[in-house]
């Protein structure tokens, strides 16, 4: 098709303008790749963390009642760390608790505040049944059995922050990118008024002129898509790691226990989580999968088409003779 050939020839001609367009489109697409791939990866992590942590429960002291009992000398189950409001049971007691039909497995770990345990239930629905059983076994009223929300939050909170950051960034990039591309295309069309006037005067229909301009943009966008995917692939992992490290730090200020619990929980359920390893730093593997790539391609083509539409609205305004007369 000669229109496509014409578009290709045009790309080779105005190198300055096209390089500028190429650079800007490349930057926009790279930013989209980074934002979208981080968003999709965090989504995955949150989903998987949710499913894997839902059935993990632990025994937590209820702060209010514990505070009271701690003040009056402590309950019989509370060990030496009671002053810190962190009480634990002995390993034997945990083992006794774990010996239940509702428990799939359990895990014991020494924390700086004593021994703690996590029980993995057969199903998250069995929580109240499990708690009733523990009460029978002598669990005091000032302890509650909870899904491990702290652990969930400690993993999910920084990931969610990262995610909302990514989606905000994505929105900003798409909107800003759209505006920049639109402005550029208006300028480009103004610059190309003569050329377009000549084509229109030869009888080339408006929509075909628009197709030529659209095709040029799609070719540039396609090229930038490939480059942007490569660059984004390089950039999104370090960017994600950096932001996440910041999130974990600020999160850890509030809950110092959470990190250790999260560490342990995460390594425990490592096979359930596709993310390999939460230890030291919570790590999200940013993978650009086919869905992400398609989404990015769709956004890119949408941006290119936006440029096309604006160009058409620019040239459909006037008769060809006016376009030719207004030329610079």
């Amino acid at each position, binding site marked *: 098709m000669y229109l496509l050939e014409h578009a290709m020839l045009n790309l080779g001609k105005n190198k300055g303008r096209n390089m500028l367009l190429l650079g800007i489109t490349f930057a926009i697409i790279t930013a989209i790749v980074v934002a979208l791939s981080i968003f999709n990866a965090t989504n995955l992590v949150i989903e998987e963390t949710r499913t894997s942590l839902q059935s993990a429960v632990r025994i937590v002291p209820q702060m209010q009642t514990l505070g009271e009992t701690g003040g009056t000398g402590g309950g019989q189950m509370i060990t030496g760390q009671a002053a810190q409001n962190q009480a634990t049971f002995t390993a034997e007691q945990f083992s006794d608790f774990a010996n239940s039909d509702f428990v799939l497995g359990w895990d014991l770990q020494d924390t700086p505040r004593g021994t703690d345990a996590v029980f993995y239930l057969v199903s998250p629905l069995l929580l109240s049944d499990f708690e009733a059983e523990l009460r029978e076994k002598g669990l005091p009223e000032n302890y509650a059995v909870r899904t491990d929300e702290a652990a969930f939050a400690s993993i999910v909170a920084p990931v969610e922050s990262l995610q909302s950051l990514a989606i905000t960034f994505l929105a900003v990039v798409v909107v800003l990118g759209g505006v920049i591309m639109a402005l550029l295309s208006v300028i480009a069309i103004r610059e190309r008024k003569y050329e377009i006037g000549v084509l229109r005067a030869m009888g080339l229909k408006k929509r075909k002129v628009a197709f030529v301009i659209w095709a040029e943009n799609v070719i540039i966008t396609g090229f930038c898509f490939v480059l942007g995917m490569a660059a984004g692939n390089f950039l999104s992992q370090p960017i994600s790691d950096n932001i996440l490290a910041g999130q974990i730090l600020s999160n850890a200020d509030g809950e110092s226990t959470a990190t250790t619990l999260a560490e342990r929980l995460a390594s425990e359920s490592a096979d359930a989580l596709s993310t390999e390893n939460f230890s030291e730093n919570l790590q999200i593997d940013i993978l650009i999968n086919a869905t992400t790539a398609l989404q990015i391609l769709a956004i890119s083509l949408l941006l290119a088409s936006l440029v096309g539409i604006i160009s058409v609205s620019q040239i459909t305004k006037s008769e060809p*003779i006016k376009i030719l007369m207004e030329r610079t």
Partner: protein
Amino acid sequence: MGLELKNVSYSYEGGTERVLRNINAQFESGKIYAIVGESGAGKSTLLSLISGLDTCKEGEVLYNGKSLKTLDRDEYRSQHIGVIFQSFNLLLNSTAVYNITLSMNISGVAATATEKKRLAYELLAKVGIDRETADRKILRLSGGEQQRVGIARALSHNPAVIIADEPTGNLDEITEGEILDIFAKLAHGEGKCVIIVTHSDEVSAAADRVLRLVGGRIL
């Protein structure tokens, strides 16, 4: 083929004066028409209305009895009309031969790409553009050469009407004579309708009819 102007008046946007006032004229196949008049008389304006590049506010331009306002003017230009502009209006950053083949493509000339290219070189040779010049960008051609490329482009899709705005303005007398021969052959030999705006007495003398525009009217 019949081309007719009926009570055509035109004024530019923002302009208070009417550039064309109540023009009536008829153009037929097989004839050369010369439109003459002072600079600013409205000759180019008239041509842009005839060639469907613009539409008149009052009156009608009829092609084969149909108003251009109702016709698809893009198709009208690409199929039936060949325009040679006063300011050429060629794609400056493209070669001469590409300007011709693109015009053929837009008009849907039925031939293979190589065939079109061969025809384009042939056509350019006819107006005195050799192969080396044909392969140069329009930017790197002289005014006279550009004008000849413009003529070749107007003929490239074999239109029924050829409209030329001072087609010999940048040409020497010898080349002007050659171009006039081409127009004469087109009109008298191939039965085309040729409408030429000109300041040249030679061109007027070669015309079958001369229309004089004064103050926006035909005398």
